[in-house]
């Protein structure tokens, strides 16, 4: 886990620990620190992880690299994502810089994944996208086990408001900047509310500068902080729709699920990855090219036909309830 970062994966894992305890199991959560200077530290981190002793446990559930390198006869993988920088992000602006060291890191991570992942008793992933990548890059078959949403029953629809809500960790991969840029092009009275922690100070500065330079302060609210679940539920309940437009995200994202449980349509992008598993074009959300003008058009359409937005939200709610993603089913699979 990345130090000082509390994202969807961290919330899910902690929720799993609580759910396991509530189901009568003793569960401990361990976090293997993933250092920021990983070019130098990667080999040590992998070796150290492999040497950790977990003999006293009947089952070990691993989620991310390098934690899934631990050795245990009853290890189960519930993969959220691999070290993406050496897989699908390789060669893009989000990948490792092209260098000899990066090439070596790529070789090592591929070799470790090919060796350690198949040692698992079961290999689950949290999304079809992750399973597809695991097969494409490592020829490892897996089964999709979508993560249940924490406190799904808390989400509700209060009203169809006048703002798009984007509650997520704020960083370049989540692409909140595209939504902000889209607000420059919107013609309706729609607003945008972004909320989440932002570990990239430069990214936040650029977004705020864009807002100021284009005079859209009255349209855009950026809450650069971790908001409580209660606050998030409240803001979502009164929104027009939710936005979730990451770049090639593995899973549909908790934002998508939260929006659907709150009966809100979801605005996403055609290259956002796992959201395609939950959102249907024109039915309970919209897929848009990752372009500010296209996003602005989609946002305006929803604002101008709030009845349509409301119907889409209701269909999204119905869809996610039919999927029956519960902790009971999930734990049964993880402990099989």
């Amino acid at each position: 886990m990345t130090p000082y970062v509390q994202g969807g994966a961290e919330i899910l894992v902690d929720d799993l620990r609580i759910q396991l305890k509530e189901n009568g199991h003793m569960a401990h959560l361990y976090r293997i620190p993933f250092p920021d200077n990983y070019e130098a530290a990667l080999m040590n981190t992998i070796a150290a992880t492999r040497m950790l002793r977990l003999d006293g446990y009947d089952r070990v559930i691993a989620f991310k690299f390098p934690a899934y390198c631990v050795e245990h006869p009853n290890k189960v993988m519930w993969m959220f994502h691999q070290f993406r920088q050496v897989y699908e992000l390789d060669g893009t602006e989000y990948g490792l810089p092209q260098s000899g060291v990066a090439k070596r890191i790529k070789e090592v991570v591929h070799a470790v994944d090919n060796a350690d992942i198949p040692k698992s008793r079961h290999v689950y992933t949290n999304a079809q996208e992750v399973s597809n990548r695991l097969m494409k890059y490592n020829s490892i078959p897996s089964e999709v086990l979508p993560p249940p949403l924490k406190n799904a029953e808390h989400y509700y629809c209060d009203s169809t408001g006048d703002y798009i809500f984007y509650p997520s960790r704020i960083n370049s991969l989540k692409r909140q900047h595209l939504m902000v840029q889209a607000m420059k092009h919107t013609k309706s009275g729609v607003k945008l509310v972004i909320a989440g922690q932002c570990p990239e100070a430069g990214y936040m500065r650029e977004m705020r500068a864009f807002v100021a330079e284009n005079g859209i302060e009255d349209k855009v609210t950026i809450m650069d902080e971790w908001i409580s679940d209660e606050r998030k539920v409240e803001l979502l309940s009164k929104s027009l729709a939710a936005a979730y437009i990451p770049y090639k995200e593995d899973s549909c994202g908790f934002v998508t699920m939260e929006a659907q449980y709150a009966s809100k349509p979801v605005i996403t992008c055609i290259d956002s990855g796992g959201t395609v598993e939950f959102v249907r074009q024109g039915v309970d959300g919209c897929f848009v090219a990752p372009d500010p003008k296209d996003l602005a058009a989609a946002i305006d359409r929803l604002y101008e036909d709030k009845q349509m937005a409301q119907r889409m939200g209701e269909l999204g709610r119905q869809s996610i309830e039919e999927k029956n993603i519960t902790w009971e089913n999930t734990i049964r699979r993880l402990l099989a």
Partner: protein
Amino acid sequence: MKIMVCAVRPDFSPPREWELAEYITAYYQKIGLEADLFALPANNDILDMPEQVAAFRMMEIGSTADIFIAVGCPAFFIQHPNKHVFLFQLLPELFEYWNTPYGVPATYQYTKIKDMVNVAVGRQLHSVKSLFCGSNLLKEDIRKRFGAKAEVFRREQEKPEESIKREKNRAIAMQTWFMPEDRIELAVDAFAHITGRLEMTLFVPDAHPLDCRATQTRIEKAGLCERVRMESRTIAEGDWQTISTLLSIPYETRSVDRSVKDALQRGMPVVTTQDSGAVLEYVRAQNSVAVKPEACEIADGILHAAQLKELKKPWRGGTLEKERAINSVLEGLVK
């Protein structure tokens, strides 16, 4: 300022390191600093110690933390230029329990491991920015074995509103995590020497089911089923109303169970043994009884404690030696 805290969580062991790590993290978050907490797995098998030491030594936490706080062993093997260490004990199986029923035997294999660990631990303790121990006994151990300097810290304890009025027909209590050195068998054997209606409650939080079963069998064989019961939890506030004396007889411990201080603060005597290590840092003649580690002596001690008069001045914290309150320590680390 960014602070990273790390502790280990050996299964079925007292969670004191983890609880302290949580406390430290919460303290810094409360005063507005960015603090993150990691738990790492470790087991108590000495044969695995070299590998675990190597694993922790190689674990990288990156450059984002300004301060790194390690609680317990082997967490303090993680490298960081600004490392502060808190210890409640230091591999007792290799030191104070060496070649006893509570530690490892002095075989060739274990002797080699001990030699390796001695060198590795010594290097680490000399490289840390500051070192804090949970007892004066541990501080002295570290000074004598490794020549390293440490300070003693004291956890804050909530002061009870008033002393509990002791009554003769209340029970004896003992809190244990079923560690071998807690000597629960000795406690049961001692209680078997006491006739009459006195009862004993064993508080056994987070205990392994097999340990519970073994102890229950021992209680049954001693014919004590009617008078000794087990509760799978820690002593709660309401329990103190039903307790007259606390029994704490660990072998050469360097870490005092919280229940000892809780009992003394409530004006309740503690029965311990003359080889109970750091527990003796808290006992005084007027508030406790320290006897030889034999069943009949402990039984006499329990009966003697029942006769002790009401403590006029319950223990209000501190030992004979100088200690620093934990909050003062934590404040000092970030100045």
